[in-house]
């Protein structure tokens, strides 16, 4: 019997009030803490916060917010989604999340990656052209730190460590740690080589095409002599009472944020046609009624032999109330429905 896990991720998307006026960064952050606490009440298994450093995603220190949530919850697992490891210090990341693990009684996780955001590179004095080398070295060091013993390490991207004890020690085994991968199969191999679980960030195109990545991951684990590790799917979406309402709430905010990013990133704007495709059965946006979203999640978890789905909820400009409704529908209706769909016979799983 496969155990499935269902999470919610946020990037600290800046909220607006009911009149469309943006709330302060501070209020948005307080709302995220409320949302995390409410996610536990709604029955969600995991709450993740992705690192961002912008006006519309004011969330550079998600671990601090996770600690606030930890103090007010008992069961929900808490983690990053993602930590931009390349522009951080692996030792500090380990210390922050093992501290969160202590505060939360062993509920911390970490997902390492880059996300689609790059603003931390200039902010902390890193060159994007060094991205690959930074990530490779730091992920390898992080894998050593997870062993929770004295670390000896030498590389180009930070000071060497000689038999260094890094505290606090985790009391309940190693932190669950994942590497987030977009579309590069060699990143899948790296996750397997270093012994991280695989988080597939699927934010465009047909999710089913990632099935090969899931197989690649398990085959690579075998090749490196490692036991099987789980695969999770992270995708954006929005749940409301009906498909029409979910799309009507999400589309203007989605278009708005892409329109803000597009000029600096140099890509084209989504059209209503492309949005309909993305939110349809073949696309990678999970926007709709609980039933629509549940069907899509179940279909794709099966197709990708993944055991965890994390919905990246919210979008700058949505209201806190809309997000709370999303969380409630996800936890109370979508998740039980997906479990039901996945336990029905003939789904091809043992």
């Amino acid at each position, binding site marked *: 019997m496969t155990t499935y896990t269902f999470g919610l991720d946020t990037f600290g998307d800046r909220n607006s009030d009911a009149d469309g006026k943006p709330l302060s960064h501070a209020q948005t952050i307080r709302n995220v803490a409320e949302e995390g606490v409410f996610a536990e009440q709604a029955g969600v298994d995991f709450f993740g916060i992705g690192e961002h450093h912008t006006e519309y995603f004011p969330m550079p220190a998600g671990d601090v917010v996770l600690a606030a949530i930890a103090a007010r919850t008992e069961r929900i697992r808490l983690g990053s989604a993602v930590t931009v490891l390349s522009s951080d210090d692996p030792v500090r990341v380990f210390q922050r999340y093992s501290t969160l693990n202590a505060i939360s009684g062993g509920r911390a996780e970490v997902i390492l990656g880059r996300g689609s955001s790059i603003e931390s590179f200039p902010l902390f004095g890193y060159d994007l052209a060094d991205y690959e080398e930074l990530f490779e070295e730091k992920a390898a060091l992080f894998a050593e730190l997870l062993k929770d013993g004295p670390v000896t390490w030498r590389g180009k991207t930070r000071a060497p460590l000689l038999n260094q004890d890094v505290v606090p020690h985790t009391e309940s085994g190693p932190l669950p740690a994942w590497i987030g991968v977009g579309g590069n199969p060699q990143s899948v191999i790296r996750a397997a080589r270093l012994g991280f679980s695989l988080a597939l960030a699927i934010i465009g195109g*047909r999710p089913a095409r990632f099935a090969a990545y899931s197989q690649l991951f398990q085959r690579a684990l075998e090749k490196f002599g490692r036991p099987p590790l789980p695969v999770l799917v992270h995708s954006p979406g929005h749940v409301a009472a009906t498909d029409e309402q979910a799309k009507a709430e999400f589309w203007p905010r989605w278009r708005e944020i892409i329109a803000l990013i597009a000029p600096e990133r*140099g890509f084209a704007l989504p059209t209503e046609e492309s949005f309909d495709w993305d939110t349809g059965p073949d696309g990678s946006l999970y926007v709709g009624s609980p039933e629509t979203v549940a069907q899509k999640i179940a279909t794709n978890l099966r197709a990708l032999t993944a055991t965890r789905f994390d919905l990246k909820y919210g979008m700058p400009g949505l209201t806190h109330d809309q997000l709370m409704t999303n969380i409630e529908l996800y936890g109370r209706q979508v998740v039980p429905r997906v479990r039901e769909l996945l336990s029905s016979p003939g789904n091809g799983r043992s």
Partner: protein
Amino acid sequence: MGKPSRLAVLGAGHVGPVIARLAIKAGYPVTIAASGDPEDIALVTELVIPGAQARWAGDAVADADIVVLAIPLHRFLDVGPALLDGKLVIDAMNYWPASDGALEAFEDDGSSEVVARRLSGSAVVKALNHIGYHELEDQARPAGTPGRKAAGVAGDDPAAVASIAGLVDRIGYDPVRVGILRAGRVLQPGGPVFGAVLTLPEFQRAVREGARSLT
């Protein structure tokens, strides 16, 4: 059509495997190479690019008629031009500072113009760079399909452009010859069709409107 051209795809990251799969589906013999030992990409090739053969870059290129450059642009500067001498080269790379960081060598001109200057012994055609790797495979359709999407092709050598336009057509897109490499700047990040998936009339309209502001 006679014997199909043999393709060597350089790069097994985000973009290379997608182009390789499309080419295999269209009937081309395809080899793929990363920066090192083909053994390193054997699993990726077997599971993600079935039908392709992983080889050392030098061997893959030597036996190919068409070479696809799908490596990060900063890595291109490490590729010796002699490797690609006499080859028909598809430049599917992008200079995209907002995503990959700034590179001085590419600050002033169109990225494919810089690539072509460096590869003076090759015929360089800019193509398959402007549709995102998420979409490139999903949106490919056989010729004649209603609503089929368009993809731009630019190059200074008309015969090379014609050949790559044929390839673009066979792998699933209406080819649009946008002109010489300099005109191919419309296909770059910041250009009117970058990241867009458009039908032929939409593409032509976008290029006409965008070209004014870019040249």
